[in-house]
C-alpha cells in the first residue's frame, strides 16, 4: 500500500514536470529511452554485489578486531585501538584510491576494480563494525559469562553459543544502518571505474547531456533500493525479537 502511494507520488512529480525537463532520455516508451534506462539499471547488480560482499567481510573482520578490544590484556586492547583509530581516520574515497593505485605496487599483486572496491569498503567499514560489536558484547551481563564458566564452556563456545547470539540481536539495528551506509558508499567506487549505479549514470550523462534527469533517476534508484533493504532489516529484527521473547 505504502509503496504504491510512493510510486504514485513519484509518477505525479515526474509527469507534472515540463519545460526544461527532458524525460525523453529515459522514457521507456521510446527505444533510446528504454535502452538508456536498462543501461542505468544495469549498475544495480554491481552496487548490490559490491556492498554485500564488502559488508560480509567487514562483519567478520570487525568481530575479529572487536574481540582483542575486550581482552584483559593491555597489549591486545592496544591492537584493537590502533586498528580502529587508524582505519577510521582515512576517508573512504581516499582508501579506495589508495587500495586501487597503491596496494598493487606495494604487494606486487594485481587487484581488479571490483576487489579493490570490496577491500576498501570492507576495511573502512570494519573499524565501525568492530566498535559496534564491542559495544554489543559489552552490553551482555557478566552473569552470562559466569554461568558459561560454571558449565565448563570454552571461551570460543561461550562466545559462539551464549554471548554473540544475544549481542547480535542487540546490534541488529546498527548492523542494518551499516548495510544502508555501505550501499551508499559503494557509489564512491565509481571513481576507479566500477560499473555500478553511479558510474553508469555518469557515463550516460557524458553521452546524453541530460544530468538533471539521469541523476534524478539515480537518486530514485538508491532510494528504492535502500527502502527495500531497510524494510527487510526491520522484518529480520522483528523475527529475532519474537524468537527471544516468544
Amino acid at each position, binding site marked *: 500500500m505504502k509503496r504504491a502511494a510512493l510510486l504514485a507520488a513519484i509518477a505525479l512529480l515526474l509527469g507534472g514536470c515540463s519545460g526544461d525537463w527532458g524525460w525523453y532520455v529515459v522514457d521507456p516508451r521510446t527505444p533510446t529511452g528504454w535502452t538508456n534506462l536498462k543501461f542505468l539499471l544495469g549498475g544495480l547488480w554491481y552496487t548490490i554485489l559490491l556492498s554485500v560482499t564488502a559488508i560480509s567481510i567487514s562483519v567478520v573482520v570487525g568481530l575479529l578486531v572487536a574481540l582483542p578490544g575486550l581482552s584483559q590484556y593491555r597489549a591486545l586492547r592496544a591492537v584493537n585501538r590502533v586498528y580502529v583509530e587508524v582505519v577510521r581516520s582515512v576517508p573512504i574515497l581516499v582508501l579506495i584510491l589508495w587500495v586501487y593505485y597503491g596496494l598493487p605496487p606495494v604487494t606486487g599483486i594485481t587487484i581488479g576494480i571490483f576487489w579493490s572496491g570490496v577491500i576498501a569498503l570492507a576495511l573502512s567499514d570494519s573499524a565501525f563494525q568492530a566498535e559496534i560489536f564491542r559495544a554489543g558484547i559489552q552490553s551482555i551481563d557478566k552473569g*552470562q559469562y559466569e554461568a558459561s564458566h*560454571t*558449565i565448563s*564452556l*570454552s571461551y570460543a563456545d561461550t562466545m559462539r*553459543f551464549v554471548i554473540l*547470539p*544475544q549481542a547480535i540481536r542487540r546490534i541488529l539495528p546498527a548492523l542494518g544502518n551499516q548495510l544502508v551506509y555501505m550501499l551508499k558508499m559503494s557509489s564512491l567506487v565509481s571513481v576507479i571505474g566500477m560499473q555500478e549505479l553511479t558510474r553508469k549514470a555518469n557515463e550516460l550523462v557524458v553521452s546524453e547531456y541530460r544530468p538533471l534527469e539521469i541523476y534524478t533517476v539515480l537518486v530514485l534508484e538508491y532510494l528504492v533500493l535502500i527502502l527495500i533493504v531497510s524494510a527487510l532489516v526491520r522484518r529480520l529484527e522483528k523475527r529475532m525479537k519474537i524468537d527471544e521473547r*516468544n
Partner: protein
Amino acid sequence: MDAGGSDAAISVRNVCKNFGDFRALNDVSLDVQAGERVVVCGPSGSGKSTLIRCVNRLEKHESGTIRVDGLELDNSRRSLDAIRAKVGMVFQQFNLFPHLTVLENLTLGPLRARGKPPEEARDLAMRYLTRVRIPEQAEKYPRQLSGGQQQRVAIARSLCMEPQIMLFDEPTSALDPEMISEVLEVMTELARSGMTMVCVTHEMGFAKGVADTMVFMDHGEIVETAPPETFFAAPETERCRDFLQKILHH
C-alpha cells in the same frame, strides 16, 4: 598431611582477597567434607559470596590455598578445567541463557563441554528437569517462566554437568516470597541425596533442616563455625547473636 588435608572435598587455607582497598576475605580457612552440607550466613558485604566464588575461580584469591578434591587451584588451565568440572554453581540472578529454550540451556554444557551425543544430552536434561519437577517447561524460554521455575532450571542446568560439589550463592534472594519454598524443596531433596553443598543463604529454616555445619562470616572473616543445634541455640560471639536476632525475629 595437615588437618583436613587432601581428603576434604573443599579445603580453604588462610585465604585473603581484596577488592581495591576493601578486604573481602581476611585469612579465611574452611574445610568441607564430601557429602557435608554447609550453610554460610552473615551480613551483606561479609565475604560469603566472595568465598564461594573463589572456590570455583570466579574470583582469584590473592594468598592462601584452595583445594578442591585434593587439587590445588592455581592459574593453570588444567586446574581450572578440573575444578569447573567438579563444581556446580547456582546464582542469585539465575543467569539462564535468555535466547535458548529451557532444554537448550540444559544441554549446552553436556553437548559442548562434555561432548555427549544429542540423544544422551537430551535424556540427561529431561531426567534433571523431572527431578526439579518442571519437565513440561522444556520447550519454553526462560522469560516465560516464574522466578522460582527459572531458579529450578538453573539448578537442573548445573546438575546436568554431574558435579561433585554444588555451590549456591543466595539462590532465593531474588525470588518473590511465594516462590522461595519450591526452590528450597529442590535444594533439600538434593541435600538428602548426599550432594556436597555449600549454600550462602538467609533461609534459616532451610539451614536448620539440612545443614551439617553453620558458618557465620563478618567483615571478611569466619567468626563462628558450629553444627546448627549449637549455632542457633547458643551462638558464641556477640556479633553472631546480633545477626541471628535480626534475621530470626524481625
